């Protein structure tokens, strides 16, 4: 899964999709995930990264990541 290249995200977590004109707010961990997706990292790599960086268990991350990626798809931010 890839996030559209033209989707712009600011340091403060403000995300803008020029194709639709819609804007979103994303929390810091969400920003990191979107960045990794734009760098074409795989879901597995992202999962590993989160487990390494954050105090959290694998089941929770899997569930939350799955949900987050679905929301990106829902908002038509992926290609």
């Amino acid at each position: 899964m890839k996030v559209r290249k033209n989707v712009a995200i600011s340091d403060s977590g403000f995300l803008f999709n020029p194709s639709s004109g819609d804007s979103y707010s994303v929390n810091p961990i969400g920003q990191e995930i979107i960045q990794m997706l734009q760098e074409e990292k795989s879901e597995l790599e992202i999962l590993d990264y989160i487990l390494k960086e954050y105090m959290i268990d694998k089941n929770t991350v899997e569930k939350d990541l799955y949900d987050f990626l679905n929301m990106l798809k829902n908002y038509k931010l992926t290609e």
Partner: protein
Amino acid sequence: MEKKQYERPIIKSLNQGLMNKFGSRTEYTPMTHIDGCAVKDLLEEYGSPLFVMSERKIRDNYRNTKRIFETRYPKVQFAWSYKTNYLNAVCNVFHQEGSWGEVVSRFEYEKALNNGVPGNKILFNGPDKTDDDLRAAIKNDSPIHIDHLDELYRLTEIATELNVNPRVAIRVNMDTGIYPMWDRFGFNYENGQAWDAVNKIMANGKLKLVGLHCHIGTFMLAPNAYGIAATKMADLAKSIKNRYNKMVSYIDMGGGFASKNTLKGSYGLGADSVPEISQYAEAICSALLNAGFDNDELPYLYLETGRALIDDAGFLLGSVISNKRLSDGRRATILDFGVNIMFTSFWYDHKISPAQEFGQHTEDSVLYGPLCMNIDVIRENVTLPPLKAGDQVVVHTVGAYNITQSMQFIALRPAVVMIDMKGEPHVIKTKEVLETLEKGEVLPDYLSKFSL
């Protein structure tokens, strides 16, 4: 290297967000402590969910309300509305503050007596008083507030039989410009029923008419309606005086002042938009003072204020069971308490705060209870930080009616704790267990055995 604190990744559409300008920051400011007690510790000690009452808040509310009325009218007496919250500890805080009792059923009446309220300081309201209830009230010299003609006749018969003169008031209903009009209780003012009831009482001479009572509605957002009601009550009192040369000793204005809750569908948060107590007080007191009573005959003003004195002194603490994504993309959070113990979630959008610190980001969510039924919705739409299983929340302004109207359904009901003036928690009702539930159940012998 120290790992970072995790927060679920969230993305929120701002196009939607702009519409929702009342998802204000105050809604999700974390509430980690109540009167100095950590929410986390309370839940660990007493289990989740848990009702918490703040004694400090109750006393503050009472003293404040009493002061507001007493600075406007010289003779004020409060009677605690038992049905609003009849946990003995709660009632006794009010009684310690000087409040009498107001009851609408026999068991509430017994509760007030057991709590030590003198019989002549318990106002007995309600449409359903049995002969036995009436006899008990007569014996204890409690003012009986007559609801309908059948009760008036019955009470007259009992008084004749016992050869006593019970103290009574009549409940009056009236048009105060408020819709719907509460005309099912008591005698109507405009169509002459109330005056007729007065004449019947005066004619038979058996009952001592000591007061007039009304309760014009609940969560009344128009203080002016109380002004109209007080004026009509005063007019009735003056008519009695003119016709019979007898002055009633009190006018009881009932309850109904709005609490700091947000009615569903209303614009803005309740805490900012409901009238102040002083507005109700001003309306009532100026109507009574301007009614033209002789100074030495000014009636007492009785008040049966319920929700406005207790609602914001009650909190419900609970925990997140799980998160879901609904088929339409909305976030759903499942909590460990349901509408069975939060009856008022059917008409209020209760304020809910997380009980732990969070980042800046929030998302819109629907909050469900744990009951296996579709109507178990605590909030249809609330803006909260991302909550995960095990996180804790505080529901605000649940001190009125939730405990007394709670149902035992699927889940056992939680404990209730009161935090005292020094910040010490006390259990004032223990958590239900299976035995609580089965007390009173009888299993016929022939059903006691089976083989599967």
